[in-house]
């Protein structure tokens, strides 16, 4: 399967990438390409031009910044899963990175790419959401910061506008209890349902593949902060949520899975 034809240009800096994006409406960024190329091969995405930012070396880093870890958008999953800084300060993120695809995929895929793609079935966007990360977005008019909670807007839709580049992900340190439950039937598959739980002051829960985008289980979170037990809170896992039905699971089965996995996640996050 070939993508349809497009022009290709390699940008050597973020500002060069931004100016190309601003001059061509249908231009799209590519880094590792492991979210975008599959879409292009299926002809679900047909950009007129690919702007390759994969070689911009200064966007690949992991830095301890006191209360948070700053991760350059081009940092690959393989680097995150093996980073001592991430393992020590945000252990859930290292673990979730190690569950993405398989080792060869993780050699290419980048955190910024996965988050910008914003797939509701993807592991890392949901992890970022439960961790209350802040996303640093650069454009011709400067830099702005968006809370992960406000970043995911809909099916493969984020707060990024044309001409904007996600350049850094700031992840608050989270060394309290955590759990990531990924339910799938075969190795390397996407989660049928996944749950991220982080206890960092309050307890934050996000859900994978329960909606068109990664979402927080707000009913569970507010029940917990109101003093509900794990069992009571987990029963609310799909409250107000309309999960999709597909070949892997019906919506009802997903609701059932969500409750079971939220309960498991809360039990595990309470014990580590």
């Amino acid at each position, binding site marked *: 399967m070939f993508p349809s034809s497009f022009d290709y240009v*390699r940008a050597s800096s973020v500002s060069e990438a931004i100016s190309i994006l601003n001059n061509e409406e249908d231009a799209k960024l590519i880094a590792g390409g492991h979210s975008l190329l599959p879409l292009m091969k299926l002809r679900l995405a047909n950009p007129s031009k690919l702007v390759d930012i*994969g070689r911009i070396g200064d966007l690949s880093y992991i830095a301890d910044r006191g209360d948070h870890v700053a991760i350059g958008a081009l940092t690959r999953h*393989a680097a995150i899963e093996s980073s001592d800084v991430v393992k020590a300060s945000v252990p859930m993120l290292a673990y979730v990175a190690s569950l993405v695809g*398989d*080792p*060869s995929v993780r050699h290419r895929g980048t955190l910024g790419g996965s988050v910008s793609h914003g797939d509701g079935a993807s592991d890392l966007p949901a992890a970022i959401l439960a961790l209350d990360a802040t996303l640093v977005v650069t454009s011709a008019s400067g830099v702005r910061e968006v809370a992960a909670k406000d970043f995911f807007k809909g099916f493969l839709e984020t707060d990024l506008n044309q001409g904007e580049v996600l350049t850094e992900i700031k992840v608050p340190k989270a060394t309290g209890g955590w759990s990531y439950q990924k339910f799938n039937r075969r190795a390397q598959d996407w989660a049928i349902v996944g749950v991220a739980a982080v206890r960092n002051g309050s307890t934050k829960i996000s859900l994978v593949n329960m909606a068109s985008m990664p979402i927080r289980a707000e009913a569970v979170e507010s029940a917990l902060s109101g003093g509900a037990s794990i069992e009571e809170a987990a029963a609310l896992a799909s409250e107000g949520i309309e999960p999709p039905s597909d070949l892997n699971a019906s919506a009802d089965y997903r609701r059932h899975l969500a409750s079971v996995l939220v309960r498991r996640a809360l039990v595990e996050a309470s014990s580590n």
Partner: protein
Amino acid sequence: MEVTMTVNGAKVSKDVEPRTLLVHFVRDNLGLTGTNVGCDTSSCGACTVHVNGESVKSCTMLAVQADGQEITTIEGMAQANGEMHPMQKAFQENHGLQCGYCTPGMVMAATSLLKENPHPTEQEVRNGLEGNLCRCTGYHNIVKAVLAAADGMAEV
């Protein structure tokens, strides 16, 4: 557009469309047909090659993205005198294949795995090869081969 890269130690330049996938570049433009196309959706690993020493699924990378990089395919694993790479020998000695379709990708993924983790446990080998599907062997002899290669190899 013109791309130049080092493939199995030799510099190559070709004029390709930007949409040319790396796997088609090595197979069709360079005639290196040892790298197979299986699922074409980055699931099965039949197309695994090394890019700068790391395993990559070449069906999900553009040839233009590999411009200026070092690529190794299964044809580049044996020595110039034809002596097989220790991983290839281990697959042969442990009968780590039946039909052989997944084998080039398996060998490339397994050597990349040992580079990152020279002495893996059996479970680590199984996890490390999760992106490479074999429909014949049930994986048992593949895992045996990789463990044998890890034992026997001074360096990969």
